[in-house]
């Protein structure tokens, strides 16, 4: 029986719960802001109407019309908020579903139970969908989420906007991303993001590339000077571009003109976007896979004569290749695995040595002997012995 340490495993689920709660919070804030603004407007309008009617500028009919206008304005806002409100209920509901999913987990007693297997498979699908979304495989991600009935356990919508922005950046357009920066100004400030400066810089570089010096200078005045306090060095460097043609060999100008700068901007946007939405900076798949492969990796995995087809690291073309640069596992305790049955040898299934020194489990040898009239064939050497010749081995 392998007990589960629920608290330890739950501690890994921070993004899973935090993401929908924060989305819920931010939609709620948006709604609240709109309503507060509306109330202020309403209070003003009513007091104005009141004044006008007192001074005889408005008669009763005009007041009614004015009030009607207020009602239609409120109704318009109500319609406009439909989407925000739908988001609120979606993320609130989603938080609830996810909490229940974790609660189900706390009821599972052991790692050997079927329930744990089922729960782990859902978790693996969650991890795979997260990976697919980050890598831009949205079709498979949605298909899998739908067919496994786990749409509330993954964040497909949250990648729609970011995919559009990345697409634009791939086509060398900054405006979508700049707009996003503007929408998230205060949060980006909190994480000390310099994404907006990089985007402004890039737009300037593109003007310099086209040798539109006048436009470039005007652009710099408007969009780069606000950064002079913190980015003076970069600012003067990028301004100097105007003196160099795009095919210059001179550094750092050659590097500034390099189109690969766009890739850096995309990764900067990604990491900012993940941080703002409480996603981990790297896909959970990579994180857990690295830990798992390292925990499984032994020196034997890379020796063909010790290969075990059930061991993930032993496959030299797939996971074994992924694990090449990862640390080996480390063990202070012995655990001996039977090369015939794959079972662990212990008090219930003793290790037995053949006269040639090769060790197998008692159960496997006994079964082999019973099928072959008491004879045993050593699978690694082909030597044949009698079951009576085997000897108990003690591993302390």
């Amino acid at each position, binding site marked *: 029986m392998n007990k589960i340490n629920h608290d330890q495993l739950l501690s890994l689920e921070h993004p899973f719960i935090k993401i929908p709660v924060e989305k819920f919070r931010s939609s709620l804030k948006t709604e609240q802001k709109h309503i507060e603004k509306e109330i202020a407007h309403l209070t003003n309008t009513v007091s104005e109407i009141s004044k006008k009617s007192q001074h005889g500028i408005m008669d009763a009919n005009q007041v009614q019309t004015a009030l009607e206008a207020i009602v239609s304005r409120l109704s318009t806002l109500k319609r406009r908020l439909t989407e925000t409100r739908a988001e609120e209920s979606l993320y609130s509901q989603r938080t609830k579903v996810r909490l229940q999913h974790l609660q189900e987990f706390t009821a599972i007693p052991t790692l050997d139970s079927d329930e744990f297997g089922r729960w782990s498979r859902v978790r693996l699908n969650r991890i795979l969908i997260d990976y697919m979304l980050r890598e831009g495989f949205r079709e498979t991600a949605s298909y899998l989420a739908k067919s496994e009935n786990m749409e509330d356990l993954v964040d497909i919508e949250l990648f729609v906007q970011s995919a559009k922005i990345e697409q634009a950046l791939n086509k060398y357009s900054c405006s979508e991303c700049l707009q996003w920066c503007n929408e998230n100004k205060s949060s980006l400030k909190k994480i000390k993001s310099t994404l907006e400066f990089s985007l402004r810089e890039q737009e300037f570089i593109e003007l310099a590339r086209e040798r539109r010096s006048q436009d470039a200078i005007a652009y710099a005045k408007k969009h780069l000077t606000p950064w002079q306090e913190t980015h003076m060095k970069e600012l003067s460097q990028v301004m100097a571009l105007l003196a160099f043609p795009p095919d210059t060999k001179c550094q750092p100008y050659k590097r500034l003109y390099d189109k690969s700068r766009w890739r850096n901007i995309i990764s900067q946007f990604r990491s900012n976007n993940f941080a703002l939405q409480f996603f981990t900076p790297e896909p959970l798949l990579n994180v857990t896979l690295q830990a798992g492969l*390292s925990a499984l990796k032994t020196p034997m995995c890379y020796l063909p004569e010790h290969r075990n087809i059930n061991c993930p690291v032993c496959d030299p073309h797939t996971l074994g290749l992924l694990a090449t640069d990862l640390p080996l596992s480390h063990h202070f305790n012995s655990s001996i695995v039977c090369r015939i049955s794959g079972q662990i040898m212990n008090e219930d299934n003793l290790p037995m040595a053949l006269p040639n020194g090769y060790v197998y489990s008692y159960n496997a040898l006994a079964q082999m002997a019973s099928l072959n009239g008491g004879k045993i064939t050593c699978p690694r050497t082909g030597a044949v012995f009698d079951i009576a010749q085997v000897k108990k081995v003690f591993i302390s």
Partner: protein
Amino acid sequence: MEAFVKDYDKVIKKQRMLETNDPLDRLINIVNEAKDKIRADPSSVSASLTALGKTIKTVSSGISEEHKELQSALSKYSKAIDKRFTGDMIAAINPHAFDNKENILRNTIAMHFIRQGNFEIGDTFAKEAGLKLPESMRHKFMEMFEIVEALKVNSLEPALEWSTRHRRELEKRSSILEFKLHRQRYLQLLEASRKEDAIAYAKQNFGYFGTRHTQEIMRLMGCLLFFDRIKSSPYADLIAPNANADIQHMFTRDFCSLIGLSCESPLYISVTVGTQAMPTIIKMSSIMKAKKTEWSQQSELPVEINLTDDTKFHSIFACPVSKEQATDENPPMMMVCGHVICKESLVKLSRSVPNGRLKCPYCPTESMSSQAKNVYF
């Protein structure tokens, strides 16, 4: 966790209240009321407008109160989340471990779905990621899942047909699948009270297994004596409740073994082991980060990660004397008494005794170090 879930219900309750009593509707209502009043009695304009101004004030302060309450409940909850789920994965992340290996990872993912019998997802993924999956693997797994589906509804024929076709390869692997399937079919006939058919089936099929499974066949025939009450007879164990699941498992294992693959998806194993290992890795990596080193750059993990028995694939021998892992240069040696220690420890122990007779550290037996023998796990 239960209390944590309940706390969230309180947040939801507050949200529902705001939802059912929409602030905008409340505002619309009071404006409409004022308007209706003025229409009914145009002389009340000024009084109605003053009253409206006051109502707006009270209603809107109520609204903002409710909003504030929900906001603060939610932000409290968000903070509680930070306290409850503390696993900070950032220290454990090595963003470069899989650099330039994206396609290996993606192929593994596609194969994972194929291996689960999830062919459509596997194909969609392969297409989206621009991968070319080996057709042959796909066909093999389709065959496997067809047979498994049949087994699920107790239809053994496709599995029997397959295992007879692969008899020689299966026997080479000491597989007893074919016999188990015949045995199961025989028991099915008995359970369906088809005694004559069962006997005929045994005559026709058990012969081949006569020498290898003598004992088992004797029992299977013996239970005919208790044909009408096997469950209360000494043969009750023959009718195991999860026989079907066991056979399915044995079949998938042998099928995968024949095509040289593990029985469980390697991706599933690795990720599941990885999640289990994460808490330890996080703790270790934050300690290492403080010392300005990266766990993923080491040649060996500095901590032991416990694996469950079903994820131990290689024998690990750690010498009980030196605590070191055995290697080719320092192999495990078995003394006369059967206790095993590493060669280096054996040499050290024998150096300290003058006559070359050393006492086993784990039992009273004395022996010469030259009597110790290499063992191979």
